[in-house]
């Protein structure tokens, strides 16, 4: 049996940030991670078969990959399929590294728009942590974006926006609409011993250069060097409790079926907004029959996933639109803030991404469709290199009916009960996406597109898993406080995207990382008053 000051469950974005801060402060840290260390030599980007592998072994869906380290998710009753990766670095290994921050209004949607809830903290509270995580991860971009208050200057120079970004920037200049080179957690120059981006255009299947930030390259190596113990292939079944109502550690199982226990003074959950409620609900016992830390009844509820639409324009010119970093060349916040005359509240952020290689031109995964027979070659040439795509992330307002539960029958490769999710796109989200699809169409037409294809809801787009253990000041209406501490179990913390009160309309990893750092530094600062088991 292992022992530690702090047990972290999950070695992804928030787990890596937590481990880095805790080891730096001298804590004895142990992390249980169900996956393995990723091997960059496995990443398919340099191989000719990259696009083939991206649809199976390197799919974002655990149900498609079906590796033993993945757990299955019953997503049959969800409009959107959840995407994630189990391993050191977590879903950052397969994310696009688009690195925007939430905006000030995102923390105050009840006050400003009369919907959902305000956060128990404000943008200004998070600002110093955003600045520090930007440096730690190595964020490239341009300061001065008028979509944000001062203080959002990325530490590294911007990545190239390419021919597609330049074309759309000129179009938005004509329209008088916002655009900006996107902040990306991808290195434009060497940084902290890591190499710069070489533009494989394959960020979402692992970065073989290590230029894309993920905690397996940015945080874990130094944390391990400073003494953190990282146990891979260790899948947590449940949190263990003392009779005094404190967490004492966790039980875990190895792939060979052997079981073990880690004892700890503090337990931190960092397993994402599906994995964390799954563990809490699987930790139900006689004293907490509806799951651990769940006196509010909100564990697993309010799942938000950012319903995603995309609009693609077809152009006469070859712009090599397969090239470069995947997250976003440029972004647009023109329609981000609420304008009630549009018939909905809140808004969306647009990201301009590459449109893939020849296999994607033949069998599009986003807007467009496959064509076979005599017209096949013309259809592929029409798409390959000659398309520009706006990806539209709309704010997803919380709804208690959208939730994570334990499936009564489905189990993972260790026999542990697996989650099922229920998620329906709301009327507000639908209206929001439809409005933005229409504006994105105008944007592409202004850039000279001769044809447009759109996908009003992309089913395989559940990259952003949020909200299933929300933070708040009131224990009756929230699971954790503003520093991630469980209202019910004072030495149990949650630091992943589960704690989001609302989703905003931007990619969340930047905010997840900044919140994790803020929570863990609060824990460190208050270590003397922290309740721990005897």
């Amino acid at each position: 049996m292992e022992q530690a000051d702090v047990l972290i469950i999950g070695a992804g974005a928030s787990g890596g940030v937590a481990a880095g801060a805790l080891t730096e402060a001298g804590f004895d840290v142990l992390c249980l991670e169900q996956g393995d260390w990723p091997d960059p030599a496995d990443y398919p980007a340099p191989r000719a078969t990259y696009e083939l592998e991206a649809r199976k072994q390197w799919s974002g869906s655990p149900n498609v990959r079906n590796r033993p380290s993945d757990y299955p998710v019953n997503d049959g009753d969800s409009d959107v399929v959840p995407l994630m990766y189990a391993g050191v670095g977590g879903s950052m290994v397969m994310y696009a590294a688009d690195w925007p921050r939430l905006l000030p209004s995102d923390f105050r949607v009840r006050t400003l728009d009369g919907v959902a809830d305000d956060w128990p903290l404000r943008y200004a509270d998070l600002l110093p942590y955003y600045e520090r995580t930007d440096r730690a991860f190595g964020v490239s971009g341009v300061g001065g974006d008028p979509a944000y208050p001062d203080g959002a200057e990325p530490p590294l120079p911007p990545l190239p926006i390419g021919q597609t970004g330049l074309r759309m920037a000129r179009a938005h200049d004509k329209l008088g609409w916002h655009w900006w080179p996107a902040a990306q957690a991808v290195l434009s120059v060497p940084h902290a011993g890591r190499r710069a981006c070489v533009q494989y255009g394959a960020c979402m299947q692992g970065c073989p250069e290590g230029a894309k930030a993920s905690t397996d390259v940015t945080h874990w190596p130094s944390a391990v060097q400073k003494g953190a113990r990282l146990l891979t292939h260790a899948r947590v079944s449940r949190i263990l409790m003392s009779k005094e109502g404190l967490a004492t550690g966790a039980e875990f199982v190895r792939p060979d079926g052997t079981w073990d226990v880690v004892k700890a003074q503090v337990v931190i959950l960092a397993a994402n907004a599906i994995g964390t409620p799954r563990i809490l609900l699987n930790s139900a016992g006689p004293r907490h029959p509806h799951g651990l830390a769940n006196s509010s009844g909100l564990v697993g509820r309010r799942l938000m996933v950012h319903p995603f639409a995309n609009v693609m324009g077809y152009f006469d010119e070859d712009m090599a639109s397969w090239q470069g970093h995947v997250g976003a060349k440029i972004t647009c916040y023109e329609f981000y803030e609420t304008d009630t005359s549009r018939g909905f509240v809140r808004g969306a952020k647009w990201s301009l991404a590459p449109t893939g290689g020849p296999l994607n031109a033949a069998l599009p995964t986003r807007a467009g469709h496959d064509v076979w027979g005599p017209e096949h070659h013309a259809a592929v040439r029409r798409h390959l290199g000659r398309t520009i795509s706006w990806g539209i992330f709309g704010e997803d307002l919380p709804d208690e009916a959208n939730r994570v539960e334990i499936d009564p029958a489905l189990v993972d490769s260790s026999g542990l009960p697996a989650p099922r999710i229920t998620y329906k796109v709301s009327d507000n989200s639908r209206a929001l996406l439809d409005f933005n699809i229409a504006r994105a169409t105008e944007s592409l037409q202004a850039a000279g597109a001769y044809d447009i294809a759109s996908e009003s809801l992309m089913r395989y787009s559940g990259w952003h898993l949020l909200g299933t253990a929300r933070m708040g000041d009131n224990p009756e209406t929230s699971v954790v406080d503003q520093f991630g501490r469980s209202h019910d179990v004072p030495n149990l913390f949650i630091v992943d995207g589960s704690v989001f009160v609302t989703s905003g309309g931007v990619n969340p990893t930047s905010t997840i990382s900044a919140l994790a750092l803020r929570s863990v530094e609060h824990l460190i600062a208050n270590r003397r008053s922290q309740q721990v088991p005897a």
Partner: protein
Amino acid sequence: MTLSSELSSTVSLDAAVPVGAPAECREWLARVADLLIPAAGDMPAASEMDVAGRQLDIVLGARPDLSRHLLRGWRSTADSDPQEAVRLLQDLDAEAYDAVRMVVAGGYYIHPHVRRLLRYTGQEPRTVRVDQVPEYLEEGLLERVMERGPIYREA
């Protein structure tokens, strides 16, 4: 031996080693492939790019999961002409139809000759140049965004 194990048991993860797809399956696949991707202009037909030969070995080396569905698709439509075979798969066996399209398009578009014809140079490393002034700065595009002023809501 089951239909799936007949092929998957001989599929190698090493793309250089030929897989054991029966010759009849390859002949059937070549006919179906040319229906899906015929020659047109400067672009060759799928069979000319050996999608039922070496390219199939490479595709199934990278995606052994496709072999089961490919083999089932062949077995269930072997007696039909290519057009009828494709129609049957579309109507009756979506997984097999998906596998056939993936095998044909995958094999075709990873062929170096096809990539040259398309001038596709993706997945090749190119160092980012940060020492050049971006055109958007030279053209004053970013400056004009800033001149329009803040667009976020104070909160």
